């Protein structure tokens, strides 16, 4: 029998269409904020990302949030960024995660501190996301630290994820970045939220033509639009997101934008599912986590 490090690894390895969902930790120490979301989402996805001070705003840590999820019986994906920690702290946190039963890690470079609520902070960026993936992969598979020294007391058992943005520039480098993350040792990928299906399909065509979809499990990102204001923010202000005019107009003209946002999300899910090589959906419902159960149910994902 195959031994899997996590349920997410099992689901993806067995070819089940995987659902992951993001849970944003609170700007405070109240565990209830995560526990109530956990209660709402239990059973509605295979694993749950806890973000690591996303957009460089101080929140309860990803590690701490993952422990709260584990206590409630949800499988966590610990997001870990290079913005706030150097290679020493990153490796140390990876060991601690594995020791506590957190076995999925999403490796990111991280949003720049300028976007957050402490723009006067010094960013670390000692290593980048590709190097982070390779470092954790070498810890897991070769049992060595970044400096080449042997890990003497237990290799971390980690299922390694990375991010991909098919919509950023230069487009020619987007598939190459994916390829680099695969070579660095990533097991799964969660993409930037997909709105521009045409561009996403174009990226996936290139991914398949290089056979990369056979080497890594790709989960397409999905962020339902809750309001016209949110559509505006995503279209004009969030770096790396590509909201086509047609979707933006639909949101603007809708009588009930929230309902329209959900309809659009359901349409996107159906179309994304049909793209060859996509192995799952990663739902980031910003400030709208309670839509996830119905979205998953109505789209027949789970």
């Amino acid at each position, binding site marked *: 029998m195959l031994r899997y490090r996590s349920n997410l690894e099992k689901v993806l390895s067995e070819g089940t269409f995987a659902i992951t969902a993001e849970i944003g930790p609170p700007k405070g120490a109240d565990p209830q904020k995560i526990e109530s979301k956990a209660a709402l989402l239990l059973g509605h996805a295979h694993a749950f990302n806890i973000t690591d001070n996303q957009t460089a705003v101080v929140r309860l840590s990803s590690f701490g949030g993952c422990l709260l999820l584990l206590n409630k019986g949800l499988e966590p994906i610990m997001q870990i960024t*290079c*913005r706030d920690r150097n*290679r020493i702290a990153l490796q140390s946190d990876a060991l601690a995660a594995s020791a506590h039963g957190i076995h999925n890690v999403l490796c990111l*470079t*991280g949003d*720049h501190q*300028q976007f957050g609520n402490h723009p006067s902070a010094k*960013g670390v*960026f*000692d*290593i*980048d*996301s*590709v*190097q982070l993936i*390779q*470092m954790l992969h070498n810890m897991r598979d070769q049992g060595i630290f*970044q400096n080449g020294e042997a890990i003497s007391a237990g290799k971390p058992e980690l299922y390694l994820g990375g*991010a*991909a*943005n098919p*919509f*950023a*520039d*230069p487009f*020619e*480098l987007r598939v*190459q*970045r994916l*390829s*680099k993350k695969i*070579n*660095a040792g990533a097991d799964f990928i969660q993409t*930037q939220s997909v709105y521009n299906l045409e561009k996403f399909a174009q990226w996936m065509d290139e991914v398949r033509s290089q056979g990369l979809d056979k080497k890594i499990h790709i989960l397409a990102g999905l962020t339902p639009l809750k309001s016209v204001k949110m559509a505006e923010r995503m279209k004009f202000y969030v*770096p*790396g997101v590509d909201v086509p005019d047609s979707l933006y107009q639909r949101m603007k003209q809708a009588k009930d934008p929230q309902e329209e946002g959900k309809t659009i999300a359901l349409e996107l899910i159906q179309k994304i599912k049909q793209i060859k090589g996509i192995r799952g959906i990663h739902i980031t419902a910003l400030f709208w986590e309670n839509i996830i159960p119905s979205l998953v149910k109505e789209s027949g994902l789970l």
Partner: protein
Amino acid sequence: MIISKQKPLTDILNAIGDGPVFIIGCSECATLCQTGGETEVLALKKMLENKNILVTGWIVLDPACHLNNSKRLLKSHKQEIEKACKLLVLACGNGVQTVADLYEKKTIISGTDTLFLGQIKRTTSYEKKCTMCGECLLDLFAGTCPISLCPKSMLNGPCGGAKNGKCEIDTELPCIWDIIYQRLKEKDNLEIFQIIQQPKDWSKSHEMRRSF
């Protein structure tokens, strides 16, 4: 070139207080940046005198960061410097500290903020180029430094934030990885991009050392 900018006048005035003050400029970088050349030194002198602050004298060192040369040049202003209780230095942090090494008992006032090691694009327009990391990687990236020019110092390609070739941090700035990509493509050298660049060896930097 060490790029600097003059501190706000109110900050300089607050630091000087009642004076008296001796003003020191620099003939090199601070002159080219128009922050501490003769013109700026004299302008500041006039401004201080208009506020009834005694300026005992002034000099433009050639350059301020040359310890022995500065020592020699300042000797000829011995009396003027003795009369001043504060030395206002219009040079980069390097020049300010060189003067501080020479006058341990005087109050040293830095009249500039030192910004970066960079290029003069045209008069009063500068661009950062080098972080002095101690191990040059420019051969790999078509002569363009991602450690210095990418806000996230990414060595393995662009983050996901660039839009229309512009950096997510400042939409006026081109994404440096976009430029590296174009230049590598021009040189038919894109395969470099496929190599995973290893974490940088920061022990090569002079962060932990003081002299060479």
